């Protein structure tokens, strides 16, 4: 491995490390999972210790789009628009069973999984997922962020 490659991989690691501990989330909260998101964000389970405690309520300022709760057909264009407005690098977390596959709402109104609309990085199943599951998903997201290669 050449010296240049050594340095760029170290820089990649450093950038990945910095990025994974400064996650600006956009909590796109719709339904019951929002209650578990609130519980995870607050004192008992605290996502602030992962650096993800500050929600940015503008898509332009956020890195990670947490889609929390059921997305139905009326809401889907809004989700797509918000996803499009986010700037690179961006990640999407499908929080809750409704966003993963539509859960038990197999009906005329609900989108059967948001990966039909936006590309998803992490799926956190559960109805609603326990805060421990959410933190596990967040840590997997951190691994994914840290492993991303930056182009020179």
């Amino acid at each position, binding site marked *: 491995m050449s010296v240049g490659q050594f340095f760029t991989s170290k820089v990649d690691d450093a950038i990945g490390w910095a990025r994974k501990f400064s996650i600006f989330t956009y909590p796109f909260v719709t339904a019951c999972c929002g209650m578990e998101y609130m519980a995870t964000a607050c004192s008992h389970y605290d996502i602030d210790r992962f650096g993800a405690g500050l929600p940015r309520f503008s898509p332009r300022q956020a890195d990670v789009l947490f889609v929390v709760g059921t997305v139905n*057909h*009326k809401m*889907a*264009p809004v989700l797509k*628009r918000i996803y499009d407005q986010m700037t690179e690098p961006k990640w999407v977390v499908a929080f809750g069973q409704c966003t993963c596959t539509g859960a038990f709402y197999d*009906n005329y*109104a609900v989108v059967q999984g948001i990966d039909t609309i936006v590309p998803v990085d992490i799926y956190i199943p559960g109805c609603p997922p326990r805060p421990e599951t959410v933190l596990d998903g967040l840590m997997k997201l951190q691994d994914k962020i840290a492993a991303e290669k930056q182009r020179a």
Partner: protein
Amino acid sequence: MDGPAILARLQERFGATILEAHEHRGDHTAVVGPAAGLEVLRFCRDDPALRFDMLMDLTAVDWLKYPGREDGLRFEVVYHLYSVAENHRVRIKVPVDEDTPVVASAVGLWAIANWFEREVWDMFGIRFEGHPDLRRLLMYEEFVGHPLRKDYVINRRQPLIGPKN
């Protein structure tokens, strides 16, 4: 007033327009002829003995698949009325035809009828005459059909709509 007294008062005032008045499991119901719905509701609200000042709920039922009611009118609009002053309740039902599903709107009587009737239009396709702004409440405008009708299959998919402009 208790339930039988309420039904008796309605029958005394409206006579034959009240098609049926019965009690089931403690709920008192009056089925009113299609054209007289608004009059009966107005009487319920304004009569000093009844004073139904709160329209607790306005919904509809589609009797298409009900065993035993295949020949009757398809829809029924159901009003649950409550009186805060007198603390009594009644249920008024107005049958609606399938081919001309139109009922007089209760917007002039209770302000909440605006949204309840929009929802009934959205879910069942029953129009309310006199409603100022009858558009869908829960579904998106491009949606075709009325989901709570019995002939709408629950998982019939419709095309995704894109973002507006």
